[in-house]
Each structure stands twice: as C-alpha cells, then as structure tokens.
C-alpha cells in the first residue's frame, strides 16, 4: 500500500509514494526525508525546504501536527481504507441527531433550556464556566432538545455530551 489519503480541515489530500523514493501530490513529484529530532519532534525535508514538526497522536489513527504555530488534525488512510470509510459515512449520514459536546472542561453554571424545548441555530442553551469566563454554549442547528445530560453545578470534561438536538 503506497497510496495514502490524508484528511485535513475537511480536505482530502492524496499522496503517492513512488518506487524511486519520492512522493507525488497532484502530479508533482517531491524528494523527501524525515528525521527524528526528539521524543515528539521531527524534521521533515521536502525538496530543499526543512520544517520542524511536532506530533501528538491520540493513540488511534488521528494525528495532531504542530507546524509554524498552527495545529492540524490529520487522519491518514490508505487509498483502499478511504474508499471503505466513504461508503460507511454515506450510510451514517442518514442519522439526523446532533450531539453537542463540551468544547472544554468546565462547570455548568446555568441551563437555560429544558428537554423538549424548541431551539434555533445560535440560541444559547447553557453557560459553561471555565477559567472564570462564562462561555455560552449555543445550538448549532434548529430542532428540539432531547436528553439534557447534565445539571447545573456539574463539572464536565472536554468532549462530554451535553445534550442532543433532534
């Protein structure tokens, strides 16, 4: 398997490794080399340019790539894997529930909407406090709140499910 598809920022970039030790993107060929600097950082050379890159892996297949002050979340699949996942995703898209998760750890200090209430996009549902700042958690879509999973005064971890909008 020498063809990879990398997902980054909703884009897919196809990268082919050729037999001559080069890689190819969009019909352009590049020489490359990767050198391990320390436990988490690497030096990547593409053509004559050299980049310092730090990698954080989530243990699964996702990478968090820090480079020039930016962090890119990437997902690498072989061309074959990518095809299979695309098919699966098309199937899953039929589900319509939107799960809203905590964007960061913090404490729920106020819940403004109850389960069963109708909300429109951008409407504030609850207030999550972190680092002394009150953050409005808003509905990303219009729909009906279902299953408010948390209560006021509760602390939540990043990524905890807060509520579902149907």
């Amino acid at each position, binding site marked *: *398997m*020498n063809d*990879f598809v*990398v997902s*980054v*920022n909703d*884009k897919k*970039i196809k*990268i082919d*490794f050729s037999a001559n030790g080069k*890689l190819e*993107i969009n019909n352009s060929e*590049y020489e*490359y080399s*990767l050198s391990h600097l*320390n436990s*988490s*950082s*690497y030096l*990547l050379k*593409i053509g004559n340019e050299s*980049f*310092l*890159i*730090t*990698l*954080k892996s989530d243990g699964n297949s996702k*990478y968090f*790539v*820090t*480079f*020039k*002050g*930016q*962090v*890119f979340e*990437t*997902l*690498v699949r*072989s061309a074959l*894997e990518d095809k*299979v*996942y695309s098919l*699966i995703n098309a199937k899953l898209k039929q589900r319509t529930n939107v799960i809203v998760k905590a*964007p*960061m*750890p*913090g404490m729920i*200090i106020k819940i403004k909407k109850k389960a069963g209430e109708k909300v429109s996009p951008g409407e504030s549902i609850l*207030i999550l*406090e*972190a*680092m*002394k*700042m*009150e*953050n409005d958690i808003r509905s990303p879509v219009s729909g009906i709140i279902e299953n408010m999973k948390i209560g006021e005064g509760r602390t939540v971890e990043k990524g905890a499910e807060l509520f579902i909008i149907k």
Partner: protein
Amino acid sequence: MFKKILIANRGEIAVRIIRACKDMGITSAAVYSEADRHSLHTILADEVYEIGEAQASSSYLNKEKIITLAKKIKVQAIHPGYGFFSENSDFIKAVENEGIVFIGPSSKSVAMMGKKTDARTLMKKNKVPIVPGTTEPVVSIEEGIRFCKDIGFPVLLKASAGGGGKGMRKVTSTKEFDSAFEATKREALKSFGNDDVYIEKYIESPRHIEVQIIADKHGNYVHLYERECSIQRRHQKIIEEAPSVFVDEKTRKKITTAAIDAAKACGYFNAGTIEFLMDKDKKFYFLEMNTRLQVEHPVTELITGIDLVKEQIQIAAGEKLSFAQKDVTAKGHAIESRIYAEDSQNNFLPSIGEIIEYIKPAGPGVRIDDGFLKGSKISLYYDPLVSKLICYGSNRNSAIARMLRALSEYHIAGPVTNIPFLTKIFKHKDFVKGNFDINFVEKNFLKKSYNKNEESSEKISAIFSAVFQKHNIISEKKSSGENNNASNKWLDLLNE
C-alpha cells in the same frame, strides 16, 4: 534594601520578579500550587514553597497561608505581581499590619481606586475627564434601564470591582438589559467577590491608550509615556505597543499630565497605570487606574530603558526615584504579543494540556517573558497566558518585522496557541498603517472567516502525516509481523 522578597504569584510575572531580585542581589522566595510544580518560577527562585491545591483560593489567593509563610521565612517584603492579591486592599492592610512591606501602593490608594465607581467620583473631583455614566452602582434592573434610556444605548455594564476586561458587557437595547445585568453580576461576584455593577456610555470606536506613571514615597511623580493597547479580544488586550502612533505631541502632553493628576489624587506611590479611552478626535476619558505592575510593562521598559520591577522594589524600600521627568526619554518602538493557549478559531476558548515541545525565538530585538518549560502543563485553573513576546525596533515597522520573524520561530506544541492569529494581525494592512480601534479584532477577524489555513501548510502537514504513517507501518511490520487491526475496525463499523 530588602534581603529577601516573597513573590505571591505564578507564571511569567513570578519569573520576571525573581529576575529583578537576582539583578539586585535580593533572595527570592517563590510559592507554587500543586498544579505548578513544573513551572519555570519554581526552578529559578532561590527558595520555593508549595502552598496548596490548584484552585487559587487554596493557594495563590489564600491570604493566611501567604502571610504565615512570609513571617515564617522572614521576608521583608512581598511582591504581588499582577492579578491575585495585587489590588486587594485587605491583603495589603494585613501585610502592612505584620510589619512586612507590600511592594506596591498603600492599601489606602488601592481602596480609593479599587472600586471603579469611587474612582470615577474621585477623578471627576480632580478634573480628570471620565466617561459619562453612573458614579454609583446600579441597584435594580428598572433603575438601570431608566438610566440607559437617559444616556442612550449602547451602554457598557461593568463590575465596580472589575478590571482586566472581565465582568463587562455591551448592551444595545432594553430587551438585552436584564439578562446582561444578571450575567455581569454573576461574573463579577465570582471573579471579584463583589456584584456591584455600574453603567457607562459606550464610546464608539475608541482607542485604549494608557499612561505608565511611577512615584516614590517622597512625592515625586514621573510619567513614562503612553502605551497603545487597542488590539483586544473579549475585551482583553492581546497586542500592546509603545509609543502610540495615534498620539501626537500635544495630546501626549495633555494625557500624561492627566495621568499624573490622577495618581496624585489618590496619594500614589509605586508603578501604576492610568487607562483612558481616546475617541477619533483625540479626546480622552479616564477608564480606570491599575494600581500595580501591568502585564504589558515590558514595552515601556524597552523604549525608556527603565527596569520597572527594580524601581518598584526600590520605591517600596523607601528610596527616592533615581530620575526626574526631564531625564526620561523614549527611544524606538516596542510591541508586545500575548501568547495565549487558546483557540482563535473557536471563540478564543482556552486550550489546556501539556506543552510537549517548546522552542523560543531569539535574536536582535526579541525578548520573551515566560513561565513554562517543555513538560509544563497549561491548567484550567489559571489564565492561559503562556508568555509575552516583546520586540523592539528603531521604528514601528522594524518592530513589526521582528515580531513576525519571532512569531514564525516560536514553536509551541501541545495546547493550541494564538500565534497564527497574531501573525494575521501583524500582516493586516490597517494594523501596519496604525489605523485601528478597540473593535479591530471583532471587525476584521470574527465576522469574516479569516481562519482559512494556508493551503501550503495543510499540504506540509498532510505530507508529514503520510510519511510518518508509512514509516510507522514499516516499523510495526518489522516488529510484529502483519497486523490486521485496520480490517477489524472496518468490520466493527459495518456491524454497528
């Protein structure tokens, strides 16, 4: 002079104060919470003491613990840094009562300037111009709405005990008033322990200009020019510079005089900052006085050559200012970027976690005030400021060029930082021209989708990921033979 100073703070400002102590031959004693064991200040200080759990109320904001420690280890003075106890007159009084010197103003001056409503009254009496609004806290929603209708929307609701941009909300109509009022009160109570809120007329498109002053205990007052701090997000400064491109000589004379008048009105000694809003016609209004060292003090240090922390310590020890107004000159231009662990593309939400790589910029005109190391954690208990990057140049353009160079060299991995966001600001044509006000960030970066990453960067990160994965697969195969994890995952998904 003092022999030993306790630093009742953390992060970059604790480090800054430790460095001043070392420069002066004073023993520095630092405190840290459980969450900060791996922070830089615990390594640089001469003595370090753990004082409690991560929550500030159990550690950095625990008056008894800090004062008990100060007595036990026999310090002559306490430096509060900024935030925490720096503007808490009860703490200052308690320190004074123990016969320990507080490196800052008297508790009386702090109390006079601490409540914004009292400060506004005092300024009005001393002919320092203030923003139109109430000089008393608002007692009810009805009263508040009535007042807003009198002076006209939009207005700003502000915590009387507030500062640092927290506890502040813009209200544009009667409809929004009550929920904004309640939210401001809640935030004020939580952040400042006092839920008094007052109303100010919202000044359209002002600049935030502040004046650094310094005064000793012998009645000598000197200003150290202005700073321009209009580049803010969530009402908090992210870029500060000195001098301001907007302030001409005539205005400079007027505003620095007003600042000295404000400081004299509260019998001030120590370094202090008088913040003003300045409108398009260069009319300015007193906003508040910060009776402490400011986060952005380094830009003033770079243009004047004065070490503000050292001066603070000397003043606290009873020494006279070593310079007069006529000795102070400003040279060149300095800009500070606050490097925050936050996601600029997601409403500036703080980003926490371990710093897994940390490589600092250096070179001519670059100064970094930071408090972390590779391996330190940005925790959710404190402000997510990672460091301050300060660049100096003979003029503004050269300072901006150095800032862009330094930002491109700064490599921080783990938490997300605002480095790409700052870079975009420094490249913005209106910023470069000096053509901006406090709404600059909101106007230029929040409404449009500025946050498109450069395509070339996406490509590099994709190439890296693919190359890394390829190498990884090769080494996995070498060590454990073929594995069919991937195909198992597909089956799991299909069965879902």
